[in-house]
């Protein structure tokens, strides 16, 4: 026989000002199965909670309804109080008398009646609650960081420094990401490589970090603390242990005309290559798509010249199966290229380049050794135009958002140009200058005031070629929308930052949501910016949205702390409010008929197959089974199941049915 205790809270006067709490407590006290009903000024206070604990013992309660504020506020408080009073915490429910009643209605009879109905409904529900035990899941204390840019590097180092193992996956042959391509960084103009390279080396040498480059995630199964990740280690055609990184092969490779990805196509590389001199690991890979041997079946010059015989032409891809406890996604971003812009010639004009290409031109280790030469004829441009917001903040181009970093790097580019070409003229077309950040606006002012960069507030309508010059037609909105035409030698587009290629595919493998621009979605835009909607998977850096280096690094450290916090426990405790497929005695085993439509609605792949076998080992029935480690308790499968074989603990069919009946019927 149920013995329910009901505790009506006044919440100071928040509830009692409009609801007659005395009447509520009294009316509820007269209901069948209510063993105790009382009111109190502050249930959440220490004496209030003691009231509950004492009543549980004194009245031998089998269920508790705290009629107070929203369960979203204090459900954990009161469930804990019940547990301390000796009652299973899941036998406690809250009736929301404050947010859903006293605060939204006037003081009158109807409001008190509604309060009674709300409490009554919870009394009927709690009668059907069952004592549940928290689900405990073990934690594999190894993290995986996907992406070896600055965000991934920072996260990996931070996690590794807490003493936990980290596996870093990078799909290109070297870690370093976009930061390794940058010449200088704003707002300090310190050399990007100089601050990044030591971190890259630290990753390679850290005893807790295992680095797999030229590797991609193949599949992800499992759940927080217990992911099973398959990683495809693409064949580098090289015995990495034998290779000493002498680089002889790369100099002897006859194939030399492959556009160099690291140089953004501004330079060439051979088929066996190290992406850049500071690469980590500093070992070559063979690009099989462009290698003469793989195309024509003969060459093997690299094999012949290799002093340690490290070349392995028949090396297959390798699939690693890894047990992972937490994942940090740090796959970064890409930028739109000049061919995205019909108004600027669809990438037809060689001297219209994007920001990353400019970085390579300005870089001392770049294809021009840091001299700003235009791609078409190697001349030093005398007149250079920078176009900010190329694609960004332009819904017509499908990119409504601000790419955030372009205002700053455009100012940097203009500045670097002026520092290198003193007599040259730099013009910047911009929509607004967005330079929020420590020392950021000062930096832009320096470009304008000290380096005399000509900032023109307006958009560029078209760029076309005339007599070997680029004609930039735009408008100056600060001069009454006056037409401006600049004859330029080179144009740099600050193109929009977009999601990294393959981001959507990876998000689907990880079962993490992503936005309409294919950027990874955070669990909450303000309060959970590094978490994803999948527990145990965190975000770092520009895979979430375009970010500058300090933001990416901060978030990476944030993600690392989340991982470290997770790994500080040997077991995770989860709320047991999960779905369950019924079981009956043989030969039925379950009323589930095994159509597995539930499997297709489950967003968490939590529905597994369970086979029942006869004595001869023959499978007699296959039914659905919920993996309680994966189930998040949404209940979509429950509403879908035609035979009502699935139920949701805490929101069971009998409970919600009882709520409907109680809420609508007289008492």
């Amino acid at each position, binding site marked *: 026989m149920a013995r329910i205790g009901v505790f009506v809270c006044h919440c100071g006067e928040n509830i009692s000002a409009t609801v007659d709490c005395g009447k509520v407590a009294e009316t509820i006290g007269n209901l069948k199965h209510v063993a105790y009903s009382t009111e109190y000024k502050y249930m959440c206070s220490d004496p209030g909670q003691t009231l509950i604990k004492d009543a549980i013992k004194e009245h031998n309660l089998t269920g508790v309804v705290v009629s107070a504020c929203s369960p979203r506020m204090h459900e954990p408080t009161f469930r804990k109080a019940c547990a301390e009073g000796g009652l299973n915490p899941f036998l406690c429910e809250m009736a929301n008398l404050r947010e859903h009643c006293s605060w939204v209605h006037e003081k009158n009879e109807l409001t008190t009646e509604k309060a009674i109905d709300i409490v009554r409904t919870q009394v009927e529900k709690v009668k059907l609650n069952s004592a549940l035990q928290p689900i405990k899941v073990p934690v594999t204390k190894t993290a995986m960081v996907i992406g070896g840019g600055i965000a991934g590097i920072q996260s990996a180092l931070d996690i590794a420094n807490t003493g936990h193992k980290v596996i870093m996956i990078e799909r290109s042959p070297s870690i370093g990401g976009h930061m390794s391509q940058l010449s200088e960084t704003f707002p300090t103009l310190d050399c990007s490589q100089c601050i990044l390279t030591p971190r890259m080396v630290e990753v390679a040498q850290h005893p807790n970090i295992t680095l797999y480059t030229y590797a991609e995630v193949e599949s992800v199964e499992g759940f927080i603390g217990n992911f099973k990740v398959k990683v495809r280690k693409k064949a580098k055609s090289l015995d990495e242990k034998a290779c000493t990184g002498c680089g002889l092969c790369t100099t002897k490779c006859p194939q030399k005309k492959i556009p160099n990805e690291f140089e953004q196509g501004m330079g060439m590389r051979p088929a066996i290559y190290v992406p850049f001199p500071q690469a980590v690991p500093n070992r070559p890979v063979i690009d099989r798509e462009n290698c003469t041997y793989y195309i024509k079946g003969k060459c093997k010059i690299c094999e012949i010249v290799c002093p340690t015989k490290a070349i392995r032409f028949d090396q297959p891809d390798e699939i690693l199966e890894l047990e992972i406890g937490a994942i940090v996604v740090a796959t970064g971003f890409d930028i739109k290229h000049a061919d995205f812009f019909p108004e600027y010639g669809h990438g037809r004009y060689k001297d219209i380049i994007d920001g990353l290409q400019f970085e390579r031109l300005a870089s001392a280790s770049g294809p021009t050794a840091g001299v700003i030469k235009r791609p078409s004829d190697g001349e030093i441009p005398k007149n250079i135009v920078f176009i900010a917001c190329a694609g960004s903040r332009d819904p017509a181009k499908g990119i409504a958002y601000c790419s955030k970093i372009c205002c700053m790097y455009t100012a940097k580019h203009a500045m670097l140009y002026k520092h290198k070409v003193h007599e040259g003229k730099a013009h910047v077309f911009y929509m607004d200058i967005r330079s929020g950040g420590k020392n950021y606006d000062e930096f832009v002012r320096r470009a304008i005031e000290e380096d005399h960069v000509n900032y023109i507030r307006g958009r560029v309508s078209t760029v076309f070629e005339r007599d070997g010059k680029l004609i930039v037609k735009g408008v100056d909105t600060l001069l009454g929308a006056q037409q401006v035409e600049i004859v330029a030698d080179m144009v740099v587009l600050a193109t929009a930052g977009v999601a990294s290629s393959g981001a959507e595919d990876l998000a689907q493998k990880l079962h993490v949501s992503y936005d309409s621009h294919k950027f990874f979605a955070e669990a909450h835009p303000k309060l959970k910016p590094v978490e994803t909607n999948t527990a145990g998977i965190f975000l770092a850096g520009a895979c979430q949205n375009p970010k500058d280096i300090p933001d990416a690094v901060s978030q990476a450290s944030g993600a690392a702390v989340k991982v470290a916090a997770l790994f500080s426990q040997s077991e995770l405790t989860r709320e047991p409010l999960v779905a369950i497929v019924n079981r009956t005695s043989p030969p039925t085993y379950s*009323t589930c008929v*095994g*159509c*597995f439509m539930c499997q*297709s*609605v489950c967003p968490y792949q939590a529905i597994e197959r369970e086979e029942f076998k006869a004595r001869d080992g023959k499978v007699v029935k296959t039914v659905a089974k919920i993996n309680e480690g994966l189930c998040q308790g949404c209940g979509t499968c429950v509403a879908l199941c*035609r*035979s*009502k074989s699935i139920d949701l603990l805490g929101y069971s069919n009998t409970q919600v049915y*009882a709520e409907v009946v109680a809420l609508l019927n007289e008492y």
Partner: protein
Amino acid sequence: MDNLILRAKELLENKTVQVVIGYEAGPTGVVRPAFISDPANADSLIYDERCVQNLAVYLTKPEVKHLGRIAIVSSLPVMRSIMMLISEQQISYDEIVVLGISADGVLLDIADLSVMQGYIDKSDLSNPVKYKELLAELKKLTPAEKFEYWQKELSKCIKCYACRQACPMCYCTRCTVEVNQPQWISVQSNAHGNMEWHILRAMHLAGRCISCGECGRACPVGIPCHLLTMHLTDQVYNYFKVYAGTSEKMNSVMSTYEPNDKESFIV
């Protein structure tokens, strides 16, 4: 139907299958399902316009499954039912041989699942014409007239569940109506319970009904309950541009979604 008989005999004789499910004429001339396991009896197989019952309903019955491998005489609705049953993991194509029959009564050579898929793909999958007309008539009624019409029809229901038993898709071993914790549907036959039962049945077949009309034919009191599911079949196509029983993969509309599914009533 000599081809069908020959093929059935062959399959039974060379032990490819243990039983052939088809149609035969009973002693009074009424067409009934036939379960033939002896090649000598295959001569009784018939196929004509009277052979409309959806035989796929037998494929999920344990007592039929125990007979062994089955060859089944399959018009388009039966083939679509088989596709649905495969997608919902109730049968496997290996367990059956499909004796496909075209709309004009010709035996098809359904060599494998992909051939059946091809035949389904090029068929008209919308509701049969005679039902389309009935549906169009009903849609013209005002809401009050519709309510009255269905109340009148459903009041006849005696809750015999013949509609459920005849439907190949209603293969659950326990139906929601048999659940009493809570009692979702009133056990008695009454106006309210009857209506809720038919709503439940139609909703459970939304996106799964292959428009065979068997439920309506099975109803002993003549309730056109097939129009409820067929109406939803129409709507599934209107909204989601798919028909049931067109893929061996789970693709029923109620278990999948598209982020840009359109509706006009959610505020």
